[in-house]
């Protein structure tokens, strides 16, 4: 029997081997990652390949899809204007189903199998953190369009991002609430299941108290819950002027309804997770008059923004949300770096990207600081009549 | 006069209001071959279940050897030397005949630590270690373990041979003919090294020839393994044939005990079996079987 057990083992290994053959288009296996940048691979000769990873399935699929469309548009524009140094640009997209291990897997694929020059993604910080070490150790630059957790770019010098980070976003809302809205007592309702929500909560509570406000209560829920009355009742007892809900639109809408149902008069505040038309469907009248911080506003008069919106409408027949804008920016920053770099891959691309300064992005002007984070203003939007209205811009 | 191996002392059990067994008493010594009879629903199998610990008696006591076993787990009672077969055959159908017996043959192997009191924490831990110790040896397939397994297999095949099932060794229990399944159950029961063997209608569904063989076989088992045997049986002929002593149950009550002749002559027994009308028509009774 033991011999046979061995045979099956053989079988498994065999399966793996041929599986590998099927999958890898490259004739020679890629050299062991660290030293040699993957530019050596033939597939990158005629065309420059960008890799993108996002969650195209699951509850927050809209994020992944918007980002993908933004990237696609940037690429097609680049090709229309003659590509980069005469070379066409293509993008290889993988779905990670919102799972970190799948994100890591996809990153490995893009590096080892598709030999991409740069990796774009992910939206969720957890998944970006799963990808980053792979990119770092393979010396493939990675640009996250919208992972706002500080840890992401701390992984290494090959990891960049084109969005602001949680501390800034939390600070912005705290500042806005305290100065513009004159809020003195705020409560927080955070999403226990999301790192993003945790991060914003920590920063907001800290900043808000520093500014002299008081946090009268922090309650938590878990993504996918539909009954928030217990938490809201507890919050109501604390009588806050405003409730900060750094969650995703899927929950926020329902929360808003139940809040108004329980007779909570406090203003609702949120972060970029609110960004989706679904918010208005789910929240209805209840979200009217709420504020949330975001990366950009379609109403921003800046030319590059309006031009972006126009062509996006032409291509996808919809007004782009901020994730589309960030995806667009990430791709363009990457290609801009390639234009400036001697070799559009590896270390030279990394250095070029690090130089990025005052790049006119759709979601604000991007300058990357020493920590490879974008330094850029955030906008505050208000929900009015079933759509968002630009209120103000707050700079670092 | 050898000492008592199994003793029921006025054991009774109730389900809700129903008194399934009332003041059931009996003693089994080495070499005894006793019968437990009674019409359907008389509580024979219930009596077995009380003896083997499937049910806990609501009053009265059951002793195996000198130990009082009320409320002990069936597997504990079995380890004390009491094995049984089932009226509705309960073999491990997907296992081979041999494996059915192997499971039974698996006695508690030499422990890693000697456990004096299993009550104390130390005892518990040691016991746990012993349990897993068996499995570690199984996983590592230590030579000692290999030997044990070999012995177990040898014993199992011997028992199969005794019960005339050697030719079925590697067949799945479910594929055996009815009679052989009954015999396999006995083989399995013997695997646990019992002192007392409880047979629940061992001859059910057998033809007269098989029954005759079985009678002989049961006697042989008793002598060969030095057992005390208690048999539930419907077939008067068989019971009267092999049992030196018979207990008769009706509606959970013991209505008669004694040697076959006495029981055969007992009015209550005849009533129970044939209804009292029989007596009026045959005043000269004692013509049972």
């Amino acid at each position, binding site marked *: 029997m033991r011999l046979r057990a061995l045979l099956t083992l053989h079988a498994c290994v065999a399966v793996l081997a041929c599986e590998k053959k099927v999958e890898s288009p490259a004739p020679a296996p890629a050299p062991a990652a660290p030293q040699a940048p993957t530019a050596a691979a033939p597939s990158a000769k005629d065309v420059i390949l960008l890799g993108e990873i996002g969650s195209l*399935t*699951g*509850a927050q*699929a*809209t994020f992944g899809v918007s980002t993908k469309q933004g990237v696609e548009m940037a690429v097609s524009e680049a090709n229309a204007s003659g590509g980069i140094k005469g070379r066409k640009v293509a993008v290889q997209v993988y779905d990670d189903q919102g799972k970190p291990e799948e994100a890591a897997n996809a990153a490995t694929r893009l590096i080892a199998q598709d030999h991409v020059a740069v990796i774009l993604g992910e939206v969720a910080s957890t998944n970006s953190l799963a990808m980053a070490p792979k990119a770092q150790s393979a010396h493939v630059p990675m640009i996250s369009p919208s992972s706002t957790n500080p840890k992401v770019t701390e992984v290494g010098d090959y990891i960049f991002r084109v969005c602001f980070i949680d501390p800034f976003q939390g600070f912005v809302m705290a500042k806005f609430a305290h100065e513009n809205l004159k809020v003195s007592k705020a409560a927080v309702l955070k999403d*226990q299941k999301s790192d993003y929500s945790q991060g914003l909560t920590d920063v907001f509570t800290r900043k808000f108290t520093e500014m002299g406000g008081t946090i009268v209560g922090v*309650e*938590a*829920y*878990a993504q*996918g*819950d*539909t*009954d928030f*009355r*217990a*938490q809201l*009742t*507890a919050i*109501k*007892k604390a009588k806050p002027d405003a409730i900060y809900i750094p969650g995703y639109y*899927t929950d926020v*809408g*329902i929360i808003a*309804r*139940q809040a108004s*149902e*329980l*007779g909570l008069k406090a203003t609702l505040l949120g972060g970029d997770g609110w960004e989706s038309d*679904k918010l208005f*469907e*789910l929240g*209805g009248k209840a979200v009217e008059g709420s504020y949330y911080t975001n990366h950009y506003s379609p109403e921003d008069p800046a030319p590059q923004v309006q031009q972006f919106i126009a062509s996006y409408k032409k291509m996808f027949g919809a007004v782009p949300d901020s994730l589309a804008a960030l995806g667009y920016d990430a791709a363009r920053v990457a290609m801009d770096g390639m234009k400036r770099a001697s070799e559009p891959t590896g270390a030279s691309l990394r250095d070029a990207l690090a130089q990025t300064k005052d790049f006119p992005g759709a979601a604000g002007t991007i300058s990357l600081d020493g920590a490879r984070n974008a330094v850029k203003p955030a906008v505050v939007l208000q929900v009015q009549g079933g759509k968002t209205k630009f209120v103000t811009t707050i700079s670092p | 006069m050898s000492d008592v191996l199994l003793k029921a002392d006025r054991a009774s059990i109730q*389900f809700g209001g129903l008194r399934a067994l009332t003041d059931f008493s009996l003693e089994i010594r080495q070499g005894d071959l006793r019968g437990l009879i009674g019409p359907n629903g008389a509580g024979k*199998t219930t009596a077995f*279940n009380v003896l083997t610990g*499937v*049910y806990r008696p609501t009053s009265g006591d059951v002793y195996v050897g000198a130990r009082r076993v009320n409320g002990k787990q069936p597997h504990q009672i079995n380890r004390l030397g009491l094995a049984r077969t*089932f009226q509705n055959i309960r073999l491990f159908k997907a296992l081979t005949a041999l494996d059915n017996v192997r499971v039974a043959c698996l006695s508690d192997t030499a422990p890693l630590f000697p456990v004096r009191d299993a009550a104390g924490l130390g005892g518990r831990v040691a016991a746990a270690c012993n349990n897993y110790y068996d499995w570690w040896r199984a996983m590592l397939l230590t030579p000692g373990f290999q030997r044990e397994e070999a012995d177990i297999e040898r014993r199992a095949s011997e028992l199969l041979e005794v019960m005339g099932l050697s030719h079925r060794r590697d067949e799945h229990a479910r594929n055996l003919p009815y009679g052989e399944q009954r015999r396999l159950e006995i083989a399995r029961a013997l695997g646990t090294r019992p002192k007392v063997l409880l047979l629940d209608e061992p001859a059910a569904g057998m033809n007269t020839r098989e029954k005759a063989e079985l009678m002989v076989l049961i006697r042989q088992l008793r002598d060969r393994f030095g057992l005390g045997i208690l048999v539930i049986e419907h077939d008067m002929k068989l019971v009267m044939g092999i049992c030196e002593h018979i207990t008769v149950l009706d509606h959970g009550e013991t209505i008669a005990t004694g040697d076959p002749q006495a029981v055969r002559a007992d009015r209550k027994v005849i009533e129970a079996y044939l209804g009292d009308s029989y007596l009026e028509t045959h005043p000269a009774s004692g013509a049972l079987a």
Partner: protein
Amino acid sequence: MADFVQHLINGLAAGTIYALVALGYTMVYGVLQLINFAHGDVMMVGTFMGYAVAKSLKLDLHPSLWGVLLVFGVSMGGCAVIGFLIERFAYRPLREKPRLTALITAIGISFLLSYGFQLDFGFLPGASPHAFPEIIEPAEWLPLFGGEVVIRNTQVISFLIALLLMVGLQYLVFRTRFGTAMRAVSFDHRVAGLMGIPTDRIIAGTFMLGSALAAGAGILYAIKDTAVQPLMGLYVGLKAFVAAVIGGIGHVPGAVAGALLLGLVEEFVVGYTASTWRDAVAFGFLIIVLLVRPQGLFGRMTPEKV
């Protein structure tokens, strides 16, 4: 004080929904000793049916009693059919097989429904939640503490409906011939069959009844929490099952009591202690109950036949 009362009301409201779902679990378990894992997902399907009807009738814009009745009618009827189909084609063939096979099938169906409905192909709703139209004009009833505490008409209505259904069920089980048959089947469906009871029909009936109940519960749930999404069945289903076990599975009033209890416990744990532990409450409660009183608060242990 006000918030305490408010919590009480919220807890009861939540418990009411659990109760309606738990009833279905308990009934099916009663007759088949099968945990109908798919029960919660049948509820979800029913809710989406109601959603479709309400949408197409634009009930949120011009609500009408008939419309509401239609919503309930369609979803409950539809689910009765689904329940029948599931029983007929998935469970009945396995009735004589080991219980495990039926359990696995149930889990399979649950998976198929809850994840099938997340596909965004064609008519399927997709993963993200939808706002459920306000088919009953939400209004506040009897404001206490000067409007501090809010009791919604919807909450009261669903509470009454739940009680009504429970009493009806109790009557059905203990006063009608169908109920007698049900109990006979639950005792031993083979013997019941021999006694000339149309076992299959009784079991099918039980499933349809349970599924219809679930659908009703689903609609009330959607009205209460204002949204429908494909995974709603999974969570509510599990909670309801826990409630049924706590109350003693197979025991009708027990299920309701367990459900209300669970609803309140969850509410107060979240309201007065760390809300971050919410999801652990139900199952922690379950494990404790299993440790202390495995047969549930009202259930009885039945000795296995030998």
